[in-house]
């Protein structure tokens, strides 16, 4: 049952990513060069709507929340490495799968690179990486926990800030269009 709903969520996500252009590495590169902000604004809208819906619906419905631990060194270092790869290749781990579905050959190259990266990570995990990743672990921290405020309130506030930012920011900086 979980597998079926995950499959359906994946299909919907794949269609949405393809339609918004997130599986185009050229559009990702233009977003990272800040020439076009459509994908960044798409992501911020997704987060805002998702956060407000999850925490308001969570007042009445059970939610399968899964907060990941903030082990600062690994999370920040991993983010910095990820950003370089994101700019060099123009794909993220999901969009290269969507791109492969579209018939992009460079997406296949990125996917194979990802499998190789996972192999390297697995081989070096016990000897080199595990000790570093244990450092500076703040645990499963949320913004609501840091601020000592109710999560639904923080979700609505964060969502409002994100929506205001995407409404205010131009989609193509340099041009006068939205």
């Amino acid at each position, binding site marked *: 049952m979980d597998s079926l709903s*995950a499959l359906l969520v994946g299909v919907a996500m794949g269609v949405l990513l393809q339609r918004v252009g997130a599986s185009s590495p050229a559009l990702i590169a233009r977003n990272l060069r800040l020439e076009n902000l459509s994908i960044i604004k798409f*992501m911020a809208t997704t987060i805002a709507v998702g956060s407000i819906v999850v925490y308001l619906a969570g007042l009445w419905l059970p939610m399968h929340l899964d907060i990941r631990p903030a082990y600062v060194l690994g999370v*920040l270092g991993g*983010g910095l490495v990820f950003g370089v790869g994101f700019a060099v290749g123009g794909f*993220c*781990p999901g969009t290269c799968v969507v791109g492969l579905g*579209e018939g992009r050959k460079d997406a296949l190259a990125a996917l194979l*690179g990802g*499998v190789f*990266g996972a192999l390297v990570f697995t081989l070096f995990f016990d000897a080199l990486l595990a000790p570093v990743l244990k450092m500076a672990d703040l645990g499963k921290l949320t913004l609501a926990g840091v601020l000592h405020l109710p999560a639904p309130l923080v979700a609505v506030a964060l969502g409002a800030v994100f929506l205001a930012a995407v409404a205010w920011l131009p989609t193509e900086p340099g041009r006068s269009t939205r």
Partner: protein
Amino acid sequence: MNAQPETAVAADVVPVRALPRWALLGAVFGLVSAASIALWGPIGVSGTYPRFIGALLRLLAPGYAGANTYLVRMGDFAKPETFLVLGLLIGGFVASRFSPRHAPRVEFIHAGQTSAAARYRDAFLGGVLIIFGARLAGGCTSGHIISGITQLSVAGMIFGAGVFASGILTAKLLQRGGR
């Protein structure tokens, strides 16, 4: 008689045009991501890569796979996330079938890039770095940035800041280098 269809078209088109594409699709994705959390859990993609490695190594080198802490921690390949990734493949295929434009086989993304071999090399290298980075951090664009920040996770915010800081810097440098 002539004015009638025009007003009908205008009334039909205006509400769609009022919302840009990224906003409409982003809002729908937000609802999908919330539905996922309601149904089984937050969306996440990058963990499937080491789980695939785990499935391979359990076949080829079961002794090693059983002793590797990371593969044991990541668990079985038969997880909802694996079906999510399969869904991405299907979604990309289906959406492109109904798309007016075909996706290019190879897309050049930085100034001065003209060789297909260089593009495949960059895509492969980028693939290595995004998965290595994502596994260091314990999540990627979907698990940390989309699902993470949706759940107000501090880790997601730290990861997102790192990704955009180095991503923007690298993209700007690559563009300058190509000119």
